[in-house]
């Protein structure tokens, strides 16, 4: 078990009139190599939750275990190295004069030799598909997509075990969004990094995650595989979330045609195509 959350509760501005319970008895586990999608509407506690993973917030109650070690009061520095955090609009956090310096910034305390540093920066830049010929450029000369990649490289360079991505695709067009999320898949596959994706997009979570955590009013509302979670469309709608179009379609079909044994856990276009072709016996070109 890579990350284990036990009975986590957190209250903002405790003891003031603005007191607000943001997390209420939250428990779950994340395995090494998982691609976890955390969804929920604004104010459901998902950002508060992930900020506990690298010690930005400390639990009021409950425990967090990383690699079976309780991290509530442990060495914050080591923790922050293990859990990389990419905030929303990460390109706003670029500040160095060149891309190289910005990516290398986190390594300053590592006491690496010039060669080692260079190797790590290049590896990180490659991991997110950043064009190496632009490393000596000013961060202001980059396009939006390149900036976002450079910013993520600056997190990857620390070799985290877990990468938390908070709405990484906000404001990007469909192509840019796919690029960023495909890199996350690559990082998971090639570098074994566990990915935690905080998102509003059901389609993205459906396409990429193997485990979905639905948050509502500070509690875990649902947890499980995307298929299992999207099956309960009514419950998701009740808490202000939608499901991918395909999930709705297959639910409607399964109700209308019980005789066809329609799989209610289908939620991506690819699965839907395969299923319907099998059912309708289309020629496979």
């Amino acid at each position, binding site marked *: 078990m890579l990350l284990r959350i036990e009975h986590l509760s957190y209250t903002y501005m405790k003891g003031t009139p603005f007191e607000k319970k943001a997390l209420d008895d939250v428990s779950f586990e994340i395995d090494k190599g998982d691609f976890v999608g955390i969804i929920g*509407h*604004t*104010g459901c506690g998902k950002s508060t939750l992930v900020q506990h993973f690298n010690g930005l917030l400390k639990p009021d109650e409950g425990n967090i275990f990383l690699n079976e070690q309780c991290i509530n009061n442990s060495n914050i520095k080591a923790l922050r190295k293990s859990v990389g955090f990419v905030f929303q609009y990460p390109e706003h956090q670029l500040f160095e004069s060149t891309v190289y310096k910005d990516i290398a910034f986190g390594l300053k305390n590592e006491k690496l030799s010039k060669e080692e540093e260079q190797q790590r920066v290049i590896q990180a830049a490659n991991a997110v598909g950043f064009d190496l010929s632009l490393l000596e450029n000013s961060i202001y000369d980059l*396009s*939006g*997509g390149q900036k976002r990649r450079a910013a993520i490289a600056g997190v990857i360079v620390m070799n985290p075990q877990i990468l938390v991505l908070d709405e990484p695709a*906000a*404001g*990007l*067009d*469909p*192509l*840019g969004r796919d690029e960023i999320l495909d890199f996350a898949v690559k990082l998971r596959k090639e570098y074994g990094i566990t990915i935690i994706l905080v998102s*509003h997009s059901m*389609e993205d979570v459906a396409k990429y995650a193997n485990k979905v955590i639905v948050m509502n009013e500070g509690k875990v509302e649902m947890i499980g595989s995307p298929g299992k979670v999207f099956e309960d469309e009514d419950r998701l709608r009740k808490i*202000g*979330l*939608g499901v*991918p*179009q*395909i999930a*709705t*379609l297959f639910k*409607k*079909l399964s109700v*209308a*045609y019980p005789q*066809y044994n329609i799989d209610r856990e289908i939620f991506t*276009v690819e699965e*839907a*195509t395969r299923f*319907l*072709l099998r*059912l*309708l016996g*289309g*020629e*496979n*070109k």
Partner: protein
Amino acid sequence: MSHVHITKSLFVFTMEDIIKYENVSYSYAYDFDDEEEELNNIQVPHVIPFAVKNVSFSVKQGEFVAIIGRNGSGKSTLARLTDALIFPTEGKIYVDSMDTSDPELTWEVRACVGMVFQNPDNQIIGTTVNDDVAFGLENIGVPTDEMQSRIDEALRYVGLEGYGDMEPHLLSGGQKQRAAIAGILAMHPKVVILDEATAMLDPVGRKEVMDVVHRLNKEENMTVLHITHHMDEVVNADRIILIDNGSLVSTGTPKKIFSQGEMMRKAGLEVPQVTKLMDNLRNNGIDVPDDVITVDEAVLALEKILVK
């Protein structure tokens, strides 16, 4: 600055062209003063890149037009041109028969076209919701006694009645964007432009904003230009303008645009999931229509086949 007629009616029921783009081109490279000093500091590229290239189309009063295109395709530039924040390098834009390039009319054009930007936090300046909505009215010189009634009316319309005294930072994202819309409505514009105004909102906030905008369009015949990457927000538009690389690629109903999957893919965009599913089935020899864009249409299309 010319004075704005505050008596202008919000509700004009005509089907005339409210906006007309005639061979509009725009290059940011031209956007510098001619002063020698500045020219020495910038590198003028050999080929001046045009952000908008020879675009012509018109929008009718009361039309709901969605503008789609990948990042950097020129959508926002087009929006800024329409609101006279920048001016065409070549060609002309007419808004309510006013030439946007005419410096005498700049402020009238801006009063006619209300714009909501992407980031809710970058466009709120008032210390209360009331103050924020009042800001635009102060700028166009609306008398104080008329102001409060206009503010109340606008806040009621966007569903923020009773929020007037609240501090804007306590609002949710969707509420902030609706407050921004109220700030525009109070100025009685004829056109509302949403420049990716839903990009930073969650599904609930997006729905709140889209509901208000659709109501404005249907009930008040407000002309809407909606720029977005969310394809589910454009299925109900009267018309889609597809832009890529600064040029107009295609225009038509959502059904017409979405049925051209290859064109959409080339423009870096995607079609709704059910449209893609129908495409896949058709490519495998199954007879389904090419203009399915909603779940209900997909159910209908599949019913015809499954019943057999």
